[in-house]
């Protein structure tokens, strides 16, 4: 019994180290001074900078293209959330409430969309968006439309459970009191479901914020349209400076880390959607 406890504690320590150490290193580089990253091989890079500095952060916030990428990221994520919920919530409600012949087919469709690799689907998607009439859409909308393809199945899966948790009595009571179906859905069901639907919204936001492939391809010829991850990759291409790269990576990650800490249990619902019985 004692040996198991010891092994467990050791395992826990190793796991925590494996997860936290890389994150620490990223942070360390982001506040590193020049001597700490340009060693010329005379001494090892220090595990804590010789002279910690927030210079790189100051440099970043002074750059217009960084802010542009941030704004683009936020806007695309918000569009994606709005679109995914608008399309996904009614569908989830119908799947939660009704038993019908095509039910299994629809669920299977949702699951099998996971088989498509983003790097494969992106080719026809870009080819479509480069041609009229879709090329008339703003690039942010294009990326949001693509992100919705990824997030919608998750939103539907996560929301089915939310609607199942709302007693049918509420709808029946509303019907007796004289509400139309649409009124019941918008005034009774959506407000009651809102906290649960927020999980899908947050998951979608993070997915869109972190997504790389579609954003990269759709903004390839349009440097102003870059999202933060794409911007990071472009910075990576033009500077070998480790501290700037790290600072940018930290800036991109901090909001999502905070977000996911706050809504840990909702993240879980999204990540295992459809996977757990």
């Amino acid at each position, binding site marked *: 019994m004692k040996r198991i406890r010891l092994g467990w504690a050791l395992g826990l320590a190793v796991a925590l180290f494996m997860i936290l150490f890389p994150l620490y290193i990223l942070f360390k580089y982001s506040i590193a001074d020049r001597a700490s990253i340009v060693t010329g091989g005379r001494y090892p890079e220090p595990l804590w900078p010789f002279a910690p500095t927030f210079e790189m952060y100051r440099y970043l916030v002074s750059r217009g293209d960084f802010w542009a990428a941030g704004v683009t990221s936020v806007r695309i994520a918000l569009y994606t959330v709005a679109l995914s919920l608008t399309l996904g919530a009614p569908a989830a409600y119908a799947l939660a409430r009704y038993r019908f012949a095509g039910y299994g087919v629809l669920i299977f469709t949702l699951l099998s969309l996971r088989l498509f690799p983003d790097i494969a689907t992106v080719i026809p998607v870009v080819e479509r968006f480069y041609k009229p009439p879709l090329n008339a859409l703003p690039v942010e909308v294009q990326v949001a439309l693509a992100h919705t393809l990824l997030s919608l199945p998750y939103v539907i899966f996560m929301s089915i459970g939310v609607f199942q948790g709302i007693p049918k009595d509420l709808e029946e009571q509303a019907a007796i009191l004289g509400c139309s179906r649409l*009124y019941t859905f918008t005034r009774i069901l959506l407000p009651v479901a809102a906290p649960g639907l927020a999980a899908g919204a947050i998951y979608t936001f993070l997915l869109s914020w972190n997504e790389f492939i579609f954003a990269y391809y759709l903004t390839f010829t349009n440097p102003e349209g870059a999202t933060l991850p794409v911007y990071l990759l472009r910075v990576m291409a033009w500077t070998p400076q480790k501290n700037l790269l790290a600072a940018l990576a930290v800036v991109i990650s901090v909001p999502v880390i905070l977000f996911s800490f706050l809504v840990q249990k909702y993240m879980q619902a999204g990540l295992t959607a459809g996977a757990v019985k």
Partner: protein
Amino acid sequence: MSHVVLRGVGKRYPNSQRFAVRNINLELARGEFLTLVGPSGCGKSTTLRMIAGLEEITEGDLYIAGRRANDLPPKDRNIAMVFQSYALFPHMTVAANIVFGLKVKGVPPAERQRKLEWACELLDLKGLEHRRPAELSGGQRQRVALGRALVLEPEVLLLDEPLSNLDAKLRLRMRTELKNLHRKLGLTVIYVTHDQAEAMTLSDRIAVYDNGRIVQVGTPEEVYYDPVNRFVAGFIGAPPMNFFDGWLEGGAFVTGGVRVPLGHGLQPPREPAGAVTLGVRPEDLTPVYEETPGALPGRVAFIERLGSDDYLVVEVAGILAQARVPAGTRVESGRPVWLVPRPGRVYWFAGDEEGRRLR
């Protein structure tokens, strides 16, 4: 003309061969309190939901206040319903919940406010108007649900097991309140419950359901003292009626190998019978400790003490029968005992599956 009429009403779900309920005939006078009672799955809730318009009526006719209501949507039937779960809208305050139906119907705000105050006064909800359902006790939620129904001034109030989510003590209190409310407002009420005690105490009349059919409709006294079959006799009354299966043969009732000569309280049915079930309620059996004609012989098993009354549990011909005895009775188990039925309170039922009452 009756206020609510169900004529030959039946429900069969699509993709199902069987009728869930069939041939339901009921007539309610204005202001009447009718209870539909039966074990779970007997079709009483389905009947209520058909009246509410939540289930379509497969066959038969429904009239509410003289209007055929079969094809009316729920909101046009002039009914209100209180659900077992109360179905309060969790995101709205008490006040918003109560006036919700009025708002949807386009009643002007001043009128809504007046009705709200009336309901809060009536149901003792004053001061809770701005709370949300989650901040209320079970009894308060119950009253909000009632208020939401009452402000609509419905022709018929439908109650689906409204007390079953309350604890035992509160249930008794709300039972009394409901009864008072019904008297005060002169409402027409259809009430569904599986609890026969609620049905007995609240109702003007009771409809007893068994397996998708109504087997008896009558006042509480009628269904209690004059059950039409073995099912009703066994369902109504607590503790339940004692049943002894056997047959009548040459002036005696034979049950489980014991021959009980007829006579005194134990009078046979007038109509001829062979295989029968004898039914006697616990309060109609008196234990005596010497052999008595017309009494069921047995041995004391134990005493069940309920406080106000005690029940002597007696083994008669292999089954356990209960007889009510004064509280504090002491008898050692194993003692031979004879159970004397009270004259006129002995029920005979056909020994077949249907268990029709033999008179």
